[in-house]
């Protein structure tokens, strides 16, 4: 479970470029929930995910994961609890290392890294089985450098890597945005499968209203650093893309809208 209490993040404080990117986000995400996150450019979606992962530390407020206060933990320390897949397929893996080396890195997430072999024969075999389950034929390419894979293959392997260390939270920041539509669909289906099989608590940022409503159990809309829409269950089932778009447009118009008026849709 993730509990976020009134977090604020400001970039470039005290400079002319000061940007108050998160302005009091309050949220509780129960274990196993799959949340989709939408919002216009600069709304603070990436900043929000970054604040959960530890890339940006909240200057105010509190973040707790499974009851542990992690507000002041840095990224490597939180990595034992949180796995991520980035928008840029290049960002989430090491192009110069082999597929199996990348997997070994991910499998040690949250553990002390000692002098034991990173790729013993047992572990190699385990990786082979796991990657074969992707159905991409990559089990014969474990020695290939990650950089040789296509963007879609890299995202698929990155998703798999996110499950290797047994962490229960998955953060996806537009992880299909750099892919062609067919590949994006494949990666999204894989995402759904992996989230279900591993019972992961998931936040997925997307720019597609369709995806936001089709995937997951709950949808958040961020605007100017605040959550302006938070729907789940029947209420969400009743929403359609045009509703969402209308809400979205109103936010962009900058009109002051209360939560009540939003929910009428």
């Amino acid at each position, binding site marked *: 479970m993730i509990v976020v209490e009134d977090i604020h993040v400001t970039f470039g404080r005290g400079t002319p470029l000061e940007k108050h990117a998160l302005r009091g986000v309050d949220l509780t995400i129960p274990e196993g929930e799959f949340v989709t996150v939408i919002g216009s450019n600069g709304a603070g979606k990436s900043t929000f995910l970054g604040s959960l992962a530890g890339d940006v530390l909240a200057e105010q407020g509190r973040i707790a994961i499974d009851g542990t206060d992690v507000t002041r933990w840095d990224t*490597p320390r939180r990595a034992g609890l949180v796995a991520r897949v980035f928008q840029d397929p290049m960002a989430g893996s090491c192009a110069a*290392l082999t597929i199996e080396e990348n997997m070994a890195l991910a499998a040690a997430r949250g553990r002390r*890294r*000692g002098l034991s072999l*990173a790729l013993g024969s047992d572990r190699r075999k385990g990786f082979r089985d796991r990657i074969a389950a992707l159905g991409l034929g990559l089990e014969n390419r474990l020695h290939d450098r990650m950089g040789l894979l296509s963007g879609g293959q890299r995202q698929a392997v990155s998703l798999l890597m996110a499950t290797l260390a047994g962490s229960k939270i998955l953060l996806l920041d537009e992880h299909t945005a750099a892919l062609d539509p067919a590949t994006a669909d494949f990666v999204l289906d894989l995402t759904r499968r992996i989230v279900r099989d591993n019972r992961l608590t998931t936040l997925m940022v997307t720019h597609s209203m369709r995806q936001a409503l089709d995937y997951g159990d709950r949808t958040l809309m961020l605007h100017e650093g605040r959550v302006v829409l938070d729907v789940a269950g029947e209420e969400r089932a009743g929403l359609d893309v045009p509703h969402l778009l209308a809400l979205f447009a109103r936010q962009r118009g900058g009109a002051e809208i209360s939560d009540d008026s939003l929910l009428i849709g």
Partner: protein
Amino acid sequence: MTEIALFGAIEIGLVYALVAIGVYLSFRILDFPDLTVDGSFPLGAAVCAVLLIAGVNPWLASLAAALAGAAAGLVTATLNVRFKILHLLASILTMIALFSVNLRVMGRPNVALLMQDTVLTPFYGLGIPDHIVRPLVVGVIVAVVVLLLARFLASEFGLAMRATGVNARMARAQGVDTDAHVYAGIALSNGLTGLAGALFAQTNGFADVTTGIGTIVVGLAAVIVGETVLPARALALALVGCVAGSILYRLAVQLALSADAIGLQASDLNLVTAVLVAVALILPRLKAKASRSAPRSTRAAK
């Protein structure tokens, strides 16, 4: 080239192979251009020489030299990681400071090792000519270092160090404390360089503050030559490439110097090395340019 000159070149090549491996660690694996080696090499020589004169066991003295080098590396890493000074500048600061430190350690600009026992002493009496014993002993030490280092880089810790150099953001997201790996890697790199300095002092019989000048360029030259003759993806082979590159580089220098027709003197070494490294750095670009323009010219020919 005489036999003595040949083995001499191999010997010095093997000593600097440790520098090449250190430079490979910092420049290639950590992507951290570190010039500290210009100071940590003579530091290793100085520490070792002073301890030998004080009657310390040669192996212990060599170990101390390696630790001194590692400490110098930690200073550079701290300036960069903790105080955010650009890596190149951080290493230049350490290097300059080490010049004074090395003078302090020795108490004068150079120290001769005449009667002192060295790690080589026990092997001199075995009936093998001295000029062959030296590269043999150094060669065994280098081989042990290569084996240990290859195993280290294949460990979970070593893999995390490689990831730190390739994609620090990803490494942090995978729970790697990238700062700790930079400290460890730069310390290791300069520790190997300090050990090289200690071996230099023991094989040549002196330590001198000025021997450090250009160490980084010689190390880089060896790495580049190694990558050219042994373009290997496997890490263990890349380390062997550093050793081979260092020896080949010394042989080439020796050839150039012994060919009277060219008229080079020993003092031209730095110039020759700098030109060699510059050419090696420029060549890949020219090659890439040539291959890019080649299809166009064939089309034009049709």
